């Protein structure tokens, strides 16, 4: 603290509180809406106090689906989202650990080229190659499947960079000691490097889980069957019905369900999450 200014502090608190409220407000409104019934919303009588239909609405959405738009119980897309998010996070971490290990701990021709090939994928988001990528996945018969949802997204420049950065900081003495003990590369990787990398791996997992969970364009493109949908796409399907018929209390319950898992992950693992985000900046 450079100087003592109680009024300045008060102002800071007020600005922060205002920020927190503005950020939380739409979610709170959605939550209240998800505890009410259709007539309350349709009549424009939504208040800021939760109503008593919470359990009813969530049970309806999870196990029966919404009435007019999709009959699909949302538990299915919720599970699909979990599978996709975990698959993408684990896949990215796995292949990026291997790549970073190869690049840091070996000398071989085209080492730099390999690094750049991975690195430059940063410049090719799905959005710039929508239809050709769709065509390949379709040719490989991976439409409407978990591998189709997961594998095309698991190349990761970010994770490779982060692990590469981390491996650089691992003391050379550890490798020398392992070599003296007669450990081969894979043994060193498994018994020395992996245990040391728990923190960056967890940080990456948090970031990539959120990335996977929130994918929109990709599942939209390659899933057509209802039972392969993700929850994020499920929301869009609910909105598709004629506007007057949208069952907003159920749409909002779905929205809350769609955001809850990644938000819980961020809040519960805040330290890892912040670390992962700030470090991938470098």
């Amino acid at each position, binding site marked *: 603290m450079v100087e003592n200014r109680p009024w*300045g*502090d008060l102002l*800071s608190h007020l*600005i*922060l509180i205002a*920020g*927190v409220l503005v*950020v939380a407000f*739409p979610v709170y*409104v959605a939550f209240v809406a998800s505890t009410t019934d259709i007539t309350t919303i*349709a009549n424009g009588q*939504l208040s800021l106090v939760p109503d008593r239909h919470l359990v009813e609405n969530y049970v309806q959405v999870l196990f029966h689906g919404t009435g007019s738009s999709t009959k699909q119980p949302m538990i299915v897309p919720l599970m699909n989202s979990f599978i996709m998010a975990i698959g993408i996070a684990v896949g990215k971490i796995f*292949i990026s650990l*291997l*790549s970073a290990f190869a*690049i*840091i*701990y*070996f000398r*071989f021709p085209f080492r730099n080229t390999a690094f750049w090939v*991975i690195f430059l994928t*940063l*410049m*090719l*988001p799905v*959005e*710039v*190659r929508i*239809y*050709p990528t769709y065509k*390949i996945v379709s040719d490989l018969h991976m439409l409407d499947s978990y591998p189709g949802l997961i594998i*095309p997204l698991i*190349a990761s420049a970010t994770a*490779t960079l982060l692990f590469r950065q981390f491996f*650089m900081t691992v003391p050379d003495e550890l*490798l020398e000691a392992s*070599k003296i003990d007669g450990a*081969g*590369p894979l043994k*060193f990787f498994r018994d020395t490097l992996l245990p040391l990398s728990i923190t960056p791996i967890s940080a990456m997992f948090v970031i990539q889980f959120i990335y996977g969970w*929130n994918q*929109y*364009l990709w599942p939209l493109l390659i899933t057509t069957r209802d039972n392969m949908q993700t929850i994020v796409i499920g*929301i*869009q399907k609910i909105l598709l019905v004629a*506007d*007057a018929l949208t069952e907003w209390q159920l*749409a909002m319950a779905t*929205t809350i369900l*769609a*955001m809850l898992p990644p*938000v819980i*992950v961020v*809040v519960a693992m*805040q330290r890892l*999450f*912040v670390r992962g*985000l*700030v470090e991938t*900046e470098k």
Partner: protein
Amino acid sequence: MEKRTVFSGKLLPFALLAPQLAVTFVFFYWPAGQAVYQSFLLQDAFGISTEFVWLDNYRQLFSDPAYYQAIMVTAVFASIVAFSALALSLLLAVQADRALTGAGIYKTLLIWPYAVAPVVAGVLWLFMFQPSLGMLAKDIRILGYDWNPYLHPGDALALVIVSATWKQISYNFLLFLAGLQSIPKSLIEAAAIDGATRSRRFWTIVFPLLSPTAFYLLTVNLVYVFFDTFGIIHAVTHGGPAGATTTLVYKVFNDGQAGGDLGSSAAQSTILMLIVIGLTAIQFRFIERKVNY
């Protein structure tokens, strides 16, 4: 920086790299190359015959007023969202950095929207601004403005801008806060002793030292608005009304799907590719140099 000791295998490193490289080539480079290649082709409606037409697809694109509209929409959308998201999060980060009591709680309460999918952000704000039953839409109407994002282009764009900004504040806030916390307090104390006022200290010391972070965030925000906001637009406004929220990415998607004009869609993809390559290149040049004063 290189390791002193390494393993000697020559084949093993390739095996280790194989999975990542395979995914990269099959799902990134090959389709990207296809997009570029197709942008030079003209395909008939049934996909039976294709003809190499050089730059015709591009020429057609740049004589299409709808494409210019999409460029304008994207430019307006991107600059407003990037500017507001950066300004608001900087304001919040500066307050949180003042070593206040409860700073940790504010941080937790401000960062969670990062985890919210853009489409969810869009639906949350749509619900409040939905013309017939939205809570805030009613307030606007009481003020005498006929708010309707389904009909009025400006309203639709405003709705999408608010949703996109709301979601991006948390990320910017976190990185600004990290940037602020890495500025040595001694610099600020020294300036205070010299009699520099709070705002002078901010604009002459803190802000310049924060400029690498701000610049990095600017490019990240632009990439975010260009590409990640697709979900908001697709679910909430469908690019309308009258193309008012049709961004470049939404147009690629829509033209390829509805119109089936693959050549044009591929040409648009190629242009987007150039944009994102440009943005990332700038981003990394600056990170490398670590702009500092």
